[in-house]
């Protein structure tokens, strides 16, 4: 894996330039670890270690690149791809769930009712496709905050921007999505 460090850098660059195949390759590399990360992150509350999730993603990064260089450009890309991969992963997972069934006779398969947050995630995912065309940076923030679930500080650090800037953009992005989520919300200019 270490010898592929250069490849990953290359892949990240290519992905940054819009190469979808690079994206797929990166996903494949990153996915097993991300699953673990996802589980770790979703473990109830995160007890105060504000940079814990970042650490974990860092570890994955370091493992893959095998070098502790603070290449900001790469790290930022890496977090971005991690968040993108996480989004892909969660959505695929959500979509793959069997249709809800509830039957008194079939006691082997008792499932609860439709999961509301499931629907939400799917909707957001769809909306993000639109958002990406208009505000790519917002898209990244949503992926990092909502799909990867980093805290504000972690997200700012990962994106390499100031905390307050991140927070503002996050609010903007949320509002954009909120408006489009329910037909009743009249779109208003955020500026």
């Amino acid at each position, binding site marked *: 894996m270490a010898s592929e460090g250069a490849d990953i850098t290359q892949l990240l660059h290519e992905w940054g330039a819009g190469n979808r195949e690079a994206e797929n390759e990166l996903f494949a590399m990153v996915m097993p670890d991300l699953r673990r990360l*996802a*589980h770790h992150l979703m473990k109830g509350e995160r007890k105060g270690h504000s940079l814990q999730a970042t650490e974990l993603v860092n570890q994955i990064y370091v493992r893959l690149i095998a070098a502790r260089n603070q290449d900001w450009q790469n790290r930022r890309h890496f977090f971005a791809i991690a968040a993108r991969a996480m989004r892909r992963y*969660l959505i695929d997972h959500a979509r793959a769930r069997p249709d809800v069934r509830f039957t008194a006779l079939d006691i082997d398969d*008792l499932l609860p009712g439709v999961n509301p*947050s499931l629907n*939400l995630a799917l909707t957001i995912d769809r909306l993000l496709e639109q958002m990406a065309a208009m505000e790519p940076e917002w898209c990244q923030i949503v992926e990092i905050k*909502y799909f*990867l679930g980093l805290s504000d500080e972690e997200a700012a650090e990962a994106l390499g921007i100031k905390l307050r800037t991140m927070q503002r953009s996050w609010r903007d992005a949320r509002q954009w*999505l909120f408006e489009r989520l329910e037909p009743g919300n009249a779109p208003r200019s955020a500026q």
Partner: protein
Amino acid sequence: MPLDPRNNEIIVTNDELVMRLVEQALDRPAEDREGYVRKACGEDASLFEIVWHYVTWDERMKSFLLHPAGSLLAEEGELEPGLVLENRFRIVRKVSAGGMGVVYEARDEKLGRRIAIKCAKAGFDARLPPEVRHASEINHPNVCKTWEIHTASHPGPDFDFFTMEFIEGKTLAERLREGPLPDNEARIVANQLCAGLAEAHRHQVIHGDLKSNNILLAKGTDGTRAVITDFGLARPWSAQGPGVMSGDLGGTPGYMAPELLKGERPSAASDIYALGVILHELAAGRMPFDSTVPLGEPAVRRPPLLRHPWRRVIARCLEPDPARRYPEVSEVAAALIPFPLRRWSAIAAAIAIAALAGAIGYRTIGVSQEVIRLAVLPFATDADSKSLSDGLLQDTTDRLRQVRDKSRKLTVIPMRDAVQNKVDAPEKAATLLGATHVLSGTLHRDNGRVTIHSSLMDARSRLPLKEWDAEYQPNELRSMPVALAGMVTGSLRLPPLATAATVNAAAYADFAAGVGLLQRDSVDGAIALLERAVAADPDSPLTYARLADAQERKYDLSLDSIWLDRARSDLQEAQRRDPDLSLLWVVSGRINEVRGRYEEAESDLRRALEIDPRDGDAWRRLGLVFQDNNRFGESIVSFRKAIEVQPDYFPNHMDLCTLYTQQANYDEAVQQCRKVVELAPDLSDGHVGLAISLFCRGNYAEADSEFLRSTELDPASATAIFSQAFAFASRGRPREAIPLFRRAIEIGPAWYLMYSGLGTAHRLAGNPAAARKAYQSGLDLAEKDLEKHPRYTILRAQLAYLCARVGERGRAESEAIQARELAPASVEVAWWLVQAWDAIGKQDEALALLQHVPDDALRRLNREADLADLRRSSRFQQLIALRHVE
């Protein structure tokens, strides 16, 4: 008051300013916010617009998107492949999601083995009931082995899971969907189910939800194995979901006994009911009752009539009244055996018992009569000692009169009668006194010291039964009648006299402490204390016997024969004081065994068992003696008796495992070793034994993990290392074996088999010179060992092999022939001889031996043993094909 950017103090960027203000506004109660913002922004209207914008949107959106999407997973509660629980269990894949639990295949990274993990489905109560803990005690091939129960805290809230045996195979339900089972297979499955369920009930574990879905048919090299899973799980896992009919009652409709539907708790009887249903499925390929009949409707449930030998058994299992069903699973199993076979098993059992009873040692000539009439003749002595002699004999007679035997009567004809009737020679006692046996002897006194010589004789045949000499100091005389009486009861196979051996107060503390030390293998300390005890209570046979015990153990450890001599002499002291002390005979048996005197050892142990039939140690030692003597059937019986008498004493199981392994009954061997590991999980040797038997059976992966475990537990165990080395060499990895053999030799003590293994490893790795050197070292050691244990036939066979490898063909042949004659029934011997013959190039002899070797051994030979030339021969191939042992 607007915050001045020129004021270096705090905020610089617009974003920071805006967000800071937004946050502070949101900190305030809703009604105060607008006021605050207006004030904070002062005259900056556009700033106000912006900040206020964010504040109002925040109020509208509330927590929108603030909960990360990953919570989807948390709600699922499902474990993803790659997830590691408790830093130890790595999930591989989901296997099934039936019933109320999800099963995953996983890998126990700590022990390096494949396991299954079961946990509750999301939405169900995730805590395991206590019943499941009991299930983990059961160790039986037809019960899914569960190991530990763990609590994990991620992902999501705490949940319990437990680890269990990973079983590859279909459920019985799935298999039945493909079509009915052939008769013999159905019978095998039925028997196995009964065996597993019986074992569970023996442990007071009720299954509660037995059904064909819960029975896995595990594939194995040794045929199908039916395994019952999900013990104790059904009922108490409460469903949180909306109520399902029988789910609430905790069972599966078609299998639930009527009393369960009425709300009673599951019981052994309801398990038997379910068993009946399964038997019906096996017999007829379908369930007995129409399962679309709604539950709760009173039983208009008539099983359709079956024409099948099992129909009566099934009908009784399915009796609506639990009291009318079979009371125990073992009875179900017995009922399934067709009658003629049942009779045969009873006969077979009887023969086994008779064999044991019949194999009494050579000393019991003339014991079978109903009444023993023992004439005591006055001992020949000088005039001064006559009264002493007569008095002692009288004491002896009185003691003997106390003997109570259920089946035989002892009549003692006292000395007076012999005198009156002028019986001056033992030969006359039969005709003159009607005696069946005669006790006579001489007594000699010298300076107070008394020497007696006594003999017991069969009066009619005049065959001497026992000669016995002893010497007593004046203060010891009170022991003499006890000893003499004991000699008689021993020789005549009568129950011992009720003299409880005791230790006096002065000696007791040291005695008890010494015995305690002995239990802990602190042999030197034990010897010191027991010597003191002996000194403090010279009259006690017990102190001497225990001292001899300790000395024998010291010999085992040091191999210095001085200890053996001391032990024997102390035993004699004990015997002089009370020959009916069973401990004495057990120790004597050990000493004889160690000296290779197997008949004496057997006889000693039998005497010990007559005195105390519940002495498990004696049974075990008897088993070992039989084994050394190649009497395997009796050996197994003895070990099983030892187990019966001492159920959880692991050395019994270890010995039985070794025996079965040597006889190529690998299934039994594995079962015994599993028991050892269960009883003493941290005992490295237990894992070694299990590894070896698994290995022999061909379960290489599990064997490897057991080897690993054994070396983990005791890295310095030569046994573990050496066994693993053997495994490597047998599996085509000789290079890895070589350093291990060396290490084992280094750790020591040196054992010929280690050198033999090293030699083979070198040979297979292509180092013939090194191989020969190792073999020669092995041969030298083996020769020395054989001198000490000439009857140990396995050793002889191994010697033959070593001779063959070193080039001493002639000797190899003669030893091989001898070994075969000594132990024609020993599979282990055959194993080595086949290799020896092959090494000399005598394929005919090798093949001749192979004809009589059991299938499992043959299979193993084919897989493992280094039989280069033989394997190439077409006759070997034919044999393998014929016996279906690829």
